[in-house]
């Protein structure tokens, strides 16, 4: 059952509509607001921030001509990308090929519905929030396979198949590590998980350290960061795309708006990964002085920065090596982590 969450209620109150109609209108408007926030972040990240960050890592300037610090490149790129011709290659599997980009962007956006972002910005708070996030985020894999298989291109197909193999290898460790967090918090509900991290863990020299699970179980945090890199497909795990090997993997044949959608989907996925990490390990929107939503966005961007750093500095694994890392390394470690956590939680409780 959907539980009432702050944001739709607030909107319904503001509009003065009560009852079921109020919940529906409030939910829709709230979803539009959160979607817009995420798309805006993506628009800043894709054409501008990503370039600037990569440039900083590689001793370059990147965009600096269009507008102050090149910021207007966002508008220029939007016009450029949307005005490009949509090339539909011969022999593509039409419905699947068209749906894939939509599905990719959409699956990542859906996940934000249950993420508490602080200051009452929280769309829905179901009891099974965490499971829901992983479920919708995994739909992206389906989109990648559809894109890869529907493109009628061998490089795309290799990319699509790599994506499946990679998903199988990281999804189980990812869920197992999240389960260890659930053992601590005792709930799958996102708001409960955040609330559980608000308690003080220790006090060092007058500074109270909250019981964020990154501090409580740094091992699980490190594992989750790695699994998240696999989830979002960034170095050393950008194997499904691997531009120097298989051209662009599943997105080789996409142009114009479809290309934008796929790119959008990827970035929102990175942000969703950041949001999950922030919620599970970094206390959600918690933080001193500044309002919660800003802290939350800052944490998402920190994770984004981490992925870009990895991308600039780390070599790419080979697909068979990734499978090894996933099944022989990550799975074993995350199982051990889960068992250990269960024992510790059991003893303490």
């Amino acid at each position, binding site marked *: 059952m959907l539980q009432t969450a702050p944001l739709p209620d607030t909107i319904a109150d503001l509009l003065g509509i009560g009852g079921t109609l109020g919940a529906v209108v409030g939910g829709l408007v709230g979803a539009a607001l959160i979607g817009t926030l995420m798309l805006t972040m993506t628009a800043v990240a894709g054409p501008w921030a990503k370039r600037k960050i990569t440039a900083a890592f*590689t001793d370059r300037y990147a965009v600096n001509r269009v507008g102050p610090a090149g910021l207007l490149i966002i508008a220029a790129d939007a016009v450029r990308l949307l005005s490009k011709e949509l090339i539909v290659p011969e022999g593509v599997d039409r419905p699947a090929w068209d749906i894939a980009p939509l599905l990719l962007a959409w699956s990542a956006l859906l996940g934000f519905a249950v993420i508490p972002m602080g200051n009452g910005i929280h769309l829905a708070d179901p009891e099974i929030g965490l499971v829901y996030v992983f479920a919708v985020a995994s739909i992206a894999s389906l989109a990648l396979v559809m894109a890869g298989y529907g493109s009628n291109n061998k490089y795309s197909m290799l990319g699509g198949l790599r994506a499946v193999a990679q998903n199988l290898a990281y999804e189980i460790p990812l869920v197992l590590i999240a389960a260890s967090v659930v053992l601590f918090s005792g709930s799958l509900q996102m708001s409960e998980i955040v609330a559980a991290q608000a308690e003080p863990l220790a006090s060092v020299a007058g500074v109270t350290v909250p019981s964020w699970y990154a501090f409580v179980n740094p091992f699980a945090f490190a594992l989750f960061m790695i699994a998240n890199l696999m989830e979002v497909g960034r170095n050393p795990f950008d194997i499904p795309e691997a531009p*120097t090997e298989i051209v662009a993997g599943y997105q080789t044949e996409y142009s114009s708006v479809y290309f934008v959608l796929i790119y959008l989907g990827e970035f929102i996925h990175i942000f969703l990964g950041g949001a999950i990490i922030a919620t599970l390990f970094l206390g959600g929107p918690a933080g001193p002085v500044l309002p919660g939503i800003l802290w939350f966005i800052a944490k998402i961007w920190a994770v984004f920065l981490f992925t870009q750093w990895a991308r*600039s500095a*780390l070599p790419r694994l*080979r697909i068979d090596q990734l499978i090894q890392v996933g099944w022989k390394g990550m799975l074993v470690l995350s199982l051990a982590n889960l068992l250990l956590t269960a024992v510790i939680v059991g003893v303490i409780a």
Partner: protein
Amino acid sequence: MSLEEPRPTDVGETADGELDYDALEALLGETAIDREEHVNAPAFVVRPDEVQEALEALREQAGFDYLSCVTAQEYADRYESIYHLKKYDDPTQEVGVVVPTPTDEPVSQTGEPVYRTADWHEREAYDLVGVEYEGHPDLRRILLPETWQGHPLGRDYDPEKPQVVPFREHANPLEEDARVETGEADTMFINVGPHHPATHGVLHVKTVLDGEQIVDVEPDIGYLHRCEEQMCQQGTYRHQIMPYPDRWDYVSAGILNEWAYARAAEDMADIDVPDYAQVIRTMSAELCRIASHMLALGTFCLDVFGDFTATFQYAFRDREVVQNILEDLTGQRLMFNYLRLGGVAWGLPEPREEFFEKTRDFLDDLPEKMKEYHNLVTSNEIFQVRCVDTGELPPAVAKQYGATGPVARGSGVDIDLRRDDPYGYYDELDWDVVTEDGCDNYSRVLVRLREVEESAKIIEQCVDLLAEWPEEERTIQSNVPRTLKPDPDTEIYRGVEAAKGELGIYMRSDGTDKPARFKIRSPCFCNLHTLREMTQGEYIPDLIASLGSLDIVLGEVDR
């Protein structure tokens, strides 16, 4: 006491390491029907149906394990193929095998079963000159399209004749889009290139995949063929040829290439080069080598790290410093055209101190930067997992394919013409030849990184020498006749150690001021031939990495 068995002395090798060509002639016996004198070494004339016998004897008994180059050419009354043989242990020990074939039936026995590298060389000879090699496993055109009519370096070739071929007659790359049955598993054919992010130019690798694994690869080259040999044949020795070498290996190895032509032409026409000019040449050549190896490292990282790697930009940042120094020296950043027969175009830039300071600053900064590369690249665990034991090229195979340069040295083959066949000022300087025994992608990268350090050592010594060179002895050019006309039928094959390996030039004069035949032995061409051996059974990413580790430049492969 050494536990190794003493190496059986090769036939024809005297105690002091010289070659006794009479003994070689005796070894060949009936097979050798005549003997020619080339400037670099004598050559034995062999009947076209006894080529394998002669090569086999020279290889197995006289120790010539290195087929450096195959040159074909057409005379007024005959065709001729020349096999330039050397030894990996001592490349100064050379011998030629000349195979004349009649004009009306230019068929010669193939040397491919003896030297694997002859495969591509003979295909090129067939393509451009028109000699046919009987028993060759795959005698197709290699540089020109399959549909080309005539052989451009033949005497009766009509360049005016239109080569109009309907589109449908061209090989259709999609046509082979059928599954090849290997018996065990279905395979997939895939074109890597000619438009692909990782082929370092316009290279087309026909690849057969079994899942992610490579069943077979076949490099398809020639997209960048620009008739360099023919253009050189139309230029005069003195000035008109020198600009072309810059355009073979065009990624900043220009002076190394120029030196190949300069060395061959100077030896052919007996031109001396003043010591001061030799030091400048040595210094500038090593600067080019650093620039080239930096680029090789950067692009290799692009292949292994992905296209947002920082290392690529770091390599370019450091290469830029070298380029600035070279620009100060030669006035150019890419197409230097700096060497002249008998010297260099001009001396060091004024004020000299500023130039020395700039160069020394670069050398002082280099160790720190090399440390950074080793931190970022070679000591990265993921990089090692990716590169160690992938793209393996055992030394015996490397020799069979005529591999040279960092590719051979990464397989533990200790060959470097700068030391083994000294030219310029190299034998006066203190430096080492770098080899690694890993035989894999990792070794090849390591060799290049360590060679940068060796080059820096050479440059440092050159700068010291130049700085202290007495002012009145700073001759940059010896006296060379305005028009060079070597004696008719002078033939020479000479190589230098370019950034990628042995860059050799064969020239034959006909008494005019232009060469009658100008043949380029490109190290990239031979090194690329090893790709198939390296990648069979490996994964796609390893194919890309191996290709990167070969460090080919298509301008030099295709010429």
